[in-house]
C-alpha cells in the first residue's frame, strides 16, 4: 500500500515537473531550452546517428533541427495525446526519414559520409583495432542476419525499445501506430530475433 502511494506520488511529481518544463518552453524560457538540451540532446543525437550510419555531423544537425522545431512548435504539443519524449522523437524521426530520402536520391557519396584523412591518425593501437574490428564484424553479421529475417518495422521497433529505451507509448507516437499494435510487433520481433540468434549460436 505504502509502495503504491509512493509510486503515485512519484508519478505526480514527474507530471508536475513535465508541466513546468513544457510551460517554460512555451514561454521561450532560456532555462527550459537548456533543460531540453541536457535532457534530450545526447539521446536525440544517438537516435539520429544510429539511423544515419554513424554520420556524427549529420546526426548533430538533425538533433539541433529537432530541438529548434520543438521550441518553435511547442504550443502545438498536447500532453494528453502523447508523452513529450514521444512527440520529440517523432520530430527527429521525420527529419531522419526526410534525410534518408534525400540521400537515396543523391548519386555521389555525401561529404559528411567521407572520413577525413587526419581522422585516421587518431585511431587506436593495431591490436585494439583488430579486436574491436572482429567484434564489430561479428555483431554486424548478426545484425545483418536479423535485418534479413525481420521486417523493417519489426527491426525499427526493436531498436527503439532495446537501444533507444523508449516506452511502448513513445514508440507508438513515433511510428504512428497503436500502442497495442506496437506491443504485438515487439513481441513478434523479439521471438524472431531469439530464434535467429539461437539458431546462429548452434
Amino acid at each position, binding site marked *: 500500500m505504502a509502495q503504491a502511494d509512493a509510486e503515485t506520488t512519484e508519478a505526480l511529481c514527474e507530471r508536475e515537473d513535465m508541466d513546468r518544463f513544457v510551460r517554460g518552453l512555451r514561454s521561450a524560457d532560456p532555462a527550459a531550452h537548456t533543460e531540453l*538540451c541536457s535532457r534530450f540532446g545526447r539521446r536525440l543525437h544517438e537516435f539520429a546517428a*544510429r539511423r544515419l550510419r554513424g554520420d556524427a555531423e549529420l546526426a*548533430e544537425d538533425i538533433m*539541433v533541427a529537432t530541438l529548434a522545431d520543438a521550441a518553435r512548435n511547442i*504550443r502545438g504539443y498536447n500532453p494528453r495525446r502523447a508523452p513529450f519524449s514521444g512527440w520529440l522523437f517523432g520530430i527527429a524521426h521525420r527529419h531522419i526519414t526526410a534525410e534518408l530520402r534525400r540521400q537515396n536520391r543523391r548519386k555521389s557519396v555525401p561529404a559528411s559520409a567521407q572520413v577525413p584523412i587526419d581522422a585516421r591518425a587518431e585511431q587506436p593501437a593495431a591490436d585494439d583495432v583488430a579486436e574491436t574490428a572482429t567484434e564489430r564484424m561479428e555483431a554486424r553479421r548478426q545484425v545483418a542476419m536479423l535485418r534479413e529475417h525481420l521486417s523493417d518495422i519489426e527491426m525499427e521497433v526493436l531498436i527503439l525499445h532495446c537501444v533507444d529505451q523508449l516506452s511502448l507509448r513513445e514508440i507508438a507516437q513515433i511510428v504512428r501506430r497503436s500502442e497495442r499494435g506496437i506491443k504485438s510487433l515487439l513481441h513478434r520481433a523479439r521471438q524472431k530475433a*531469439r530464434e535467429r540468434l539461437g539458431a546462429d549460436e548452434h
Partner: protein
Amino acid sequence: MSTERFDQQLACLLATAEPVPELRPGWEQRAMAAMAAVAVARPKRVPRLVTVIVVTLLLLILAGAVFAAVRYLFIEGTLSFDSTVGPWPGGPPGQSSRLLSGELEWSTEQVSADGADLVPVEGVPSPATGELAFETAVDWPPTFSDIWKTDPDGSEVVNLTARAELGGVNCYPQWSPDGSMIAFQHCDPVEGVVPCEAGFHLWVISADGSEARPVLPEDTPGTMWGRWSPDGSRLLCNMSLEGTDETRYDVAVTTDPWGTDIQVLPNVGNRPTWSPDGTMIASTREREGELDGVSGAWNQLVVTGADGSDPEVLVQQFIVDAEVNSFLSGGEEFLGTPGFDWEGDLCAWVGPRQPEWSPNGDRIAFLAAMPWDPEGPYYKLQIEVWVYDLNTDELIQVTDDDLAQTHLSWK
C-alpha cells in the same frame, strides 16, 4: 533467458554493430542558439477565442455568400396566380392556381373553388409574427367585408374591423414589415350606391384592431392600393383627384402612415409597387401616342426611382381607340399579333397590369391581355402572365391559355 536480459543483449549487439560517434564539443551552444533564434522569430500567437470568432465570422460570410449565390441562381422565387373563367377576373367560382418555378418551367395545379357564398381570400402572412390577415366577403361584388386575422394554425380568429367598429367594405390587407399595423382599403356604405363604386380610401389599423384611421386627409376623393416600403416607413398608393372611378386613380403618392408627409410621384402610374430593396418603383401607366400614323394609347410597364425619377419603359402595348389593334412590345420587338377585339368595359385589362417584383428584385411579373379569339365565347378574356427580366431585358410569356389570370404574387 528473461525478456529483460535478452533486450540488454540485443541492445549490446546493436550498439557494437553500429557504434554511436561522440558529439562534437560546442553542440550545446549550437542547439541553444538555434532555439533562441526560433524564439525570437516566433510570431505572437493569436488567442484561440479570437481565432474561433474570426473563423466563425468568415464561415458565416462564406455561407451567406453561397446562400445568396444559390438563391440568385436557382431560387428566384415562386410566382403564383389565380386563373379565372369569366368576365370578372378574380371573382368566384372557378378559380384555379398555377405555380411557376424560379427557372420558369411551370406546372399547373387545378384548385377547385368550393362555390360557397363566403369567399375567404388567401391569408396574407405577417412578416413579423406569421399571423394571417384576410378578408371575407358575403357576396359578389361585396357589399360588406371585414379584415380578419388569425394565428398561423387557424386559431385565435379576430375580426379586426368589427373590433374597430368599422363597417362597409374592408379589403386588401397589407401587413407593415414590423407586423404592428395593417393597411387596407375601406369603403363606407352609401345608401343606394354599390359599395365599390362609392370610393375607396386607404386606411391603417393596428394589429390588435384597437385603432383604425384613414391615411390620407378625409377630403381626398379616393385612394386605392397601398404598399408598405420595405423599411415600413412609407406607404405607396394611388390617389384620385377627380372621381372615384378606378381608372382615374392615376396619381401615385407616397406618405408616412399618418399622412403628414405626402409626396406626389411623377412618372409613376397605376398599382405602384416597391422593389425589394425599396430603391425603385414599378407601375403601369397609359400615355397617348400613335403607331404608324394611327392615334391611340401606349399602356406601359414603367420603372422609376423611389421618388419617381428616371422613368424607364420596360414593356408597352399599343391600344387603338375602339379599334382592334394591340401589340405587346418588349424593347424594340413587337410581340403578339394585331386583331384584338375588345369591349369598352374590359379596356382596363389591356396592356401591362399589376406588376410584381420577384423576391431578389431582378424580375417583374405582370398581366397583359392577349388578342381575343372572335370565335370563342364573349367572356373569353385572355389575360396572360408575363415576366420581364431586368438583367437580360428578356420578356417571357408564362401562360398561354383561354383563362384570365389574376392575383400575381411571388414567394
